[in-house]
Each structure stands twice: as structure tokens, then as C-alpha cells.
């Protein structure tokens, strides 16, 4: 039971981190439905010219959709929502430019392709500024990728730790059953016959450890979910923490079983090789 708890706690760390990262990813994914690019046009560009540009962009095969935001409409909207209504009324001219918001086609999801599109757009005379709306999301995703790599390393290290825990437990079991092993060997037991019960215990340590690790992680998510949703509420979001997907839980349990069996196998086969002549 001790061993199972240690395995569960050890494995809950990497699996918990992975679930957190996946949650972060889904959070950024919610915002990052499309890689929008905003084109701020020159002040001198008229509405007709802007409409023309918008139409030509709509015909560009790399662009899924281009939407023109008329500067007059933009100002009205700004006046309405910003609370600077009277200040804006005091302006003589509209300081806002026309803006075209474009969404690249779905296959345009890598940085290199987007950058070439941006460079192409920048060369247009009527366009003053090209802004990638979601640049910060790429950075967040970059950080998450680093974190994911970190989790992989932690998983390997803690996997080795689990292997050692199981080995140690099986070694103790082996010591306790030394006499039994000697006797079964004397009456003609094969190597696999002697190993079998130890491999079974390795399996059960791994299986139970993996199951309890998944329970621990989901329990932790359940505990954190309440405060997280109320925080998300403050940002007008309905974000909820996702529990560990069933397929991941299965993979973690299989991983844990693999470690349990391997740890046991290594110790017992080394012990038996020492005994054999």
C-alpha cells in the first residue's frame, strides 16, 4: 500500500502538470480561433479605395475572409462604448483610419507562412500598419511548449524513480520469500514459474499506482475548478478546467503498469541469474 501511494504521488506530478498545460492550451485555443491580422490603412485612403482593396483581398487565395471596418462606423462604435463620447464630439476630423481585418485560410497556421503574408501586405501603398492580433498567443504557446518539454523530462526522471521504488519493494519481497524460491527451484521450477508472482505484484503496484495518480490529479482539478471559474467569470469568460481525458488516464495507467512490470522483472531476473550456475 505504501508503494502504491508513493507511485501514485510520484506519477501525479507529471500527469498533473500535463493536464495544467493542456488546460492553458485550451484557454489560448478559445481565443485563438483564427490568426486575425489587422490592416490599418493610410488616413488619405477614401472609403471607395478601401472597399476596392477589401474586395481584392477577398479574392486572394490565401485569405479566407477580409472585413472592412469603415472609419466612420468605427468612430461611432468607439463613441458609444468608450465613454469618451463628448470628447470625440469635440474633434473636427475623424482620427481613425479605415481598418481591414483579414483571416488567413486555415492551412496558414504556421509562423513562416503568416510572416510572408504580412510582408506581402506591407508592400501595399495604402496600408500603413500590419498588426498580427494574436502575436502574444504565439508567445504563450511558445512558453507552453517549453513547459511541455519540461514535463517530458520530469516524466522521464519520475518514471525512473517509480522503477526504483518498485524494484526496491520487489527486492524486499524477494528477501522474504528466499526460502520459498530455493525450494521451488529444487523441485524443478522454471525461471518463468518463479518470476510470475513477482511480475504480478509489479503489475498490481503499477496498475494501482496509476489509477490512484489519476484520481489524485482529477481530485486536484476538482478542487481548483471552483476558484478558477469564478476568476474566469471576472473576465466574462465561461472557462472551466478540463479533467484528465479518459484516453490520457488510460495511457498513464499503462505507463505505470509498464514501469511496475519492468522494475519487478529487472530485480527478479538479476536475482535468479545470480543463483543459477
Amino acid at each position, binding site marked *: 500500500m505504501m508503494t502504491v501511494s508513493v507511485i501514485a504521488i510520484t506519477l501525479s506530478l507529471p500527469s498533473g502538470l500535463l493536464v495544467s498545460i493542456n488546460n492553458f492550451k485550451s484557454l489560448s485555443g478559445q481565443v485563438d480561433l483564427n490568426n486575425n491580422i489587422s490592416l490599418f490603412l493610410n488616413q488619405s485612403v477614401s472609403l471607395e479605395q478601401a472597399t476596392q482593396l477589401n474586395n481584392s483581398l477577398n479574392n486572394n487565395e490565401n485569405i479566407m475572409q477580409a472585413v472592412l471596418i469603415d472609419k466612420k462606423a468605427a468612430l461611432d462604435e468607439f463613441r458609444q462604448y468608450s465613454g469618451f463620447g463628448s470628447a470625440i464630439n469635440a474633434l473636427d476630423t475623424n482620427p481613425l483610419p479605415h481598418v481591414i481585418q483579414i483571416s488567413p485560410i486555415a492551412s496558414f497556421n504556421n509562423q513562416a507562412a503568416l510572416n510572408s503574408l504580412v510582408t506581402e501586405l506591407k508592400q501595399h501603398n495604402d496600408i500603413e500598419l500590419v498588426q498580427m492580433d494574436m502575436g502574444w498567443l504565439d508567445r504563450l504557446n511558445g512558453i507552453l511548449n517549453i513547459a511541455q518539454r519540461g514535463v517530458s523530462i520530469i516524466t522521464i526522471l519520475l518514471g525512473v524513480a517509480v522503477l526504483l521504488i518498485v524494484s526496491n519493494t520487489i527486492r524486499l519481497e524477494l528477501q522474504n520469500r528466499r526460502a520459498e524460491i530455493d525450494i521451488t527451484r529444487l523441485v524443478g521450477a522454471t*525461471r518463468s514459474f518463479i518470476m510470475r508472482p513477482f511480475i504480478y505484484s509489479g503489475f498490481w503496484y503499477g496498475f494501482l499506482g496509476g489509477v490512484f495518480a489519476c484520481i489524485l490529479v482529477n481530485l486536484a482539478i476538482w478542487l481548483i475548478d471552483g476558484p478558477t471559474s469564478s476568476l474566469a467569470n471576472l473576465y466574462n469568460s465561461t472557462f472551466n478546467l478540463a479533467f484528465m481525458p479518459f484516453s490520457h488516464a488510460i495511457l498513464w495507467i499503462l505507463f505505470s503498469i509498464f514501469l511496475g512490470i519492468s522494475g519487478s522483472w529487472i530485480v527478479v531476473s538479476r536475482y535468479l541469474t545470480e543463483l*543459477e550456475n
Partner: protein
Amino acid sequence: MLQFLNVSKRYPGGADALKNVSFELQKGEMAFLTGHSGAGKSTLLKLIAILERSTQGQVMLDKQNIGRLSKRNVPYARRKIGMIFQDHRLLHDRTVFDNVALPLIIAGLDRHEIQRRVRAALDKVNLLGKEQRYPITLSGGEQQRIGIARAVVNRPPMILADEPTGNLDPALSEEIMQLFEQFNQVGVTVLVASHDIALIQRMGYRTLQLSKGEMVNNHG
């Protein structure tokens, strides 16, 4: 059945435990192995049980050179020998039945056959009715008989006994020896290591005598 051909055994860094030992046991023969402690009795038995390998010479069991047997095949060769020990070597956390059934479980027999054979073996050693007892609750003589039942339960062609009467009083020793005689009468080859000279002489079987690793007497 069993043949030693110029067998020597030297332990690493130690003296010769066996020097150029040769003898043969015919199928269905019964013999005693004697000698003082340190004469090489245990080494000789270990070579037969393949717990040790000879440094020189051949150990043939049932026409098989067991000294050259691969590790994989060692367990199967051991199943041809029923081994009995002075300290019984029983599993104290298992019942009498489970102890005796062990070789059959290892051999992979089905439950019904195991039950039948265990009962037959226990019947032979007069322990029927004590299947569910634990060895520790039985007397020394009874424990030794569990060991004997375990050794014969899978009907091996040969029985090897290492000081089987070492801890028993003369009457019980006699009883155990009579058991061996009974097995011998149905064709089992029996080799008993013992230093109970009086008992051996009374029984009148062939005696192999070891002294300082050498076979000094190899007939009756």
C-alpha cells in the same frame, strides 16, 4: 540411471571437494552414501541436483550429461529427482497439501490430477487426513514424511535423500528407511546420504564411502 565418470569438483579458491570420483547406480538400485562431514557428500549431491557443476568429468543422469545442461533445461532435469533434506525444506506458510502439491503445480498438472496424486502420496507416507494442517503443527517425523511425499508425488525415477534421519530417533529413522525401501521395491532408484553407520549396516545395501573427496569404497 546415475553415473559419475572421473568427476572432480574444485570450489573457486578452495581445495578439491571431489577428486576423480567414479561410480554407477543401476536403475532400481538402492545405495547409501557415507563419509565424515567435509568428505564431499554434500558436493556430490549438489552435482546430481545441478546446484553445482563439476570442474572435470561427467555426471550422467538417465543417459543425459547433466553437467553440460543449459540453464533452460536444468529445471526439467531436476524433476527427474525427488529430493529429501535433513531440514525438510517445507514451506511453513502453506498447508501439507500445498507443500506436497508444489512439484505438480510447477509441472502444470490440472487440479483434479493434483488432488488425486497428492492424496496417493500422502497415503503412502501415512499422512492422509492431515492435508489441511500446517507443517509446524506436526512432529519432526511427520514433517520429514511430508518432504518424502513431496519428493515422490510426481513419480521421479530417482530419489535423493540428504541425511533424512539426521534429526530423528532410531525408531522413526527405521520407519523412514522402510519407506525408501518401499519406493525402491516399485523400481525407484534411491541414494541416501547418511552417517548413521549402524543403521546402514543393519539395512545391508550397497554403500558408497567418501573420504576427503575420494571414493574409497564403492560396493556393498
